[in-house]
């Protein structure tokens, strides 16, 4: 069963009215083309400002009906879990009450369940395969703009499945952000802190990440979309053009994309493929490419890791693939994937900085070392990958234990002082507390893989006695956690 626009709006209204301690409903600045209000819902628990944010958008393409329902049902599942202290069971994947608590007490989840209410209404009342919004394209007999071609990333470049013809189902509109529905998404990105994003579509069981307009490469930073003309109503037109992405961002997209796919597979075994958007077909002006591109087009903007989900399988025909008679199992898969994205958006170091060192900005020197130095070599990126593997299992252990929390803050503070003074040396008196701490974390963890990673960290820490902090960072850039030499890349 699928909810009408009115029912979706009523549900978000009830949640905000009944549970203001969890939900804030925001009417977005612009009504839809036909004048319908568009609502976003913020879900969070507990105090704390300046949190990392996740934005989940549904219903961009009108006929892809199940995702708006999945997003509001996810909100209800998380509310119930947090309020009652119960696990969320999605088939074979149990999201523990602790995991949900960490997500809701750490992040702001922004939900835009139905970004295209006119289109959804039209699907339910006139044409169940309608894709676009309901713009009246003046001077033509054709209606609608494809909202997922209307954003300001190579807008109007007709590479692949993008068209400048108002009668096309992939019509990009008369200008970038010509549509109120896409301007509402931009408003959320401009107004709130959004670190992770997913535009949830159907179908074909994919988790897509940038880029969608050209192959991705990590070696030539001069090949950037910012150098290409827009609004040409012609393809890119540069033979062999490949879009640049930093190696560390590509690694992050691949790692998180696979974790989302793994969280979906754990529900009932459906295999979602994680790949760049181009793998489906070439596009321009899409949500996920635009959202990630913002920090490149304007260095003053925050970087947001963005994905497109394509939920559900091909069922043998298009109509039942877009709206199967019973989407329950597909929605369960999708909810597990959305939760995985949210969980991957948590940054343990930021969290500890915010909660225990008096502010997230205190850890910014560490972020600079990570981005400007460690992330620039293959070996360094192996360290980052290890950290990202262990941080989520460990952050719950650390934040749940006052002693471990206090010690984490002390060690983090020590690390920050060492980074501030490149000549300071790592003496035995510095390393020993770190080794002891890692040993206790390993003992507290029940995850064999986490323990193996922590063992590797201890072994490498032992070898750093006597190094200056600059030398220690160099060493991390030269040799990965296993002690193997990495190649220097993207320097």
């Amino acid at each position, binding site marked *: 069963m699928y909810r009408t626009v009115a029912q979706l709006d009523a*549900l978000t209204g009830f949640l905000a009215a009944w549970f203001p301690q969890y939900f804030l409903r925001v009417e977005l600045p612009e009504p839809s083309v036909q004048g319908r209000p568009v609502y976003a819902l913020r879900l969070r628990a507990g105090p704390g400002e300046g949190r990392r944010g996740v934005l989940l958008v549904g219903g961009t393409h009108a006929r892809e009906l199940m995702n708006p329902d999945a997003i509001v049902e996810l909100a209800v599942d998380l509310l119930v879990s947090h309020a009652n202290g119960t696990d969320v069971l999605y088939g074979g994947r149990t999201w523990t009450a602790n995991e949900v608590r960490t997500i809701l007490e750490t992040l702001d989840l922004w939900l835009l369940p139905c970004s295209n209410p006119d289109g959804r209404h039209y699907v339910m009342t006139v044409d169940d395969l309608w894709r676009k919004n309901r713009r009246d394209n003046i001077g033509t*007999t054709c209606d609608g703009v494809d909202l997922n071609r209307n954003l300001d990333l190579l807008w109007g470049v007709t590479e692949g499945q993008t068209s400048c013809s108002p009668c096309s189902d992939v019509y990009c509109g008369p200008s970038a952000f010509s549509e109120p529905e896409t301007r509402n998404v931009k408003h959320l990105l401009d107004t709130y802190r959004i670190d992770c994003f997913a535009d949830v579509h159907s179908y074909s069981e994919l988790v897509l990440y940038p880029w969608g307009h050209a192959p991705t490469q990590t070696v030539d930073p001069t090949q950037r979309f910012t150098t290409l003309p827009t609004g040409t109503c012609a393809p890119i037109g540069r033979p062999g053009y490949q879009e640049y992405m930093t190696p560390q961002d590509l690694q992050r997209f691949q790692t998180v994309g696979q974790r989302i796919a793994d969280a979906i597979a754990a529900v009932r075994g459906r295999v979602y493929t994680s790949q760049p958007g181009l793998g489906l077909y070439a596009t321009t002006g899409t949500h996920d490419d635009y959202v990630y591109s913002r920090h490149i087009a304007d260095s003053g903007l925050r970087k947001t890791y963005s994905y497109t989900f394509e939920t559900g399988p091909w069922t043998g025909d298009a109509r039942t*693939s877009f709206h199967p008679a019973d989407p329950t199992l597909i929605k369960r898969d999708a909810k597990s994937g959305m939760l995985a994205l949210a969980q991957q958006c948590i940054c343990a170091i930021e969290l500890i900085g915010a909660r225990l060192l008096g502010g997230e900005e205190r850890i910014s020197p560490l972020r600079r070392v990570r981005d400007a130095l460690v992330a620039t070599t293959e070996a360094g990126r192996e360290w980052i990958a290890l950290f990202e593997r262990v941080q989520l299992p460990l952050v719950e252990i650390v934040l749940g234990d006052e002693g471990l929390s206090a010690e984490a803050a002390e060690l983090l503070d020590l690390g920050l002082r060492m980074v501030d003074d490149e000549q300071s040396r790592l003496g035995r008196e510095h390393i020993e507390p770190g080794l002891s701490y890692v040993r206790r974390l390993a003992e507290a963890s029940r995850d064999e893989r986490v323990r193996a990673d922590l063992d590797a960290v201890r072994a490498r820490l032992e070898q750093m006695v006597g190094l200056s902090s600059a030398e220690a960072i160099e060493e991390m850039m030269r040799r990965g956690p296993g002690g193997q030499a990495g190649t220097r890349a993207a320097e």
Partner: protein
Amino acid sequence: MSDPRPEPEQRAPATTARFEATISPGEKRRSLEDVADLGLDRVPGPTGQVRLLITTDDLVRLVDHGYEVNVKRALPVRPLDPGLVSDDGSDKAWLEEQVRGIDRQGT
């Protein structure tokens, strides 16, 4: 809450039917590379196929461009099956059931 099946738009849809179709290059063409230039509604299908939802006009354009079109099924333009639409009462009851026992701090 309003009626779950609000009034349809007054304006008639521009087409009465679509076709779900796959295409192949045909005798005059070597590949499917240029099909994207036609701005058609491409939908995912089984691996490797270019599958489209097309109108009669699209069908004519495809054939004019030398593609061979294999129509899989006709899809009359129609609203979503009413049997697939939630009704207001059951939807609110579902929410009430889900959140039963949770402290409502609001009204």
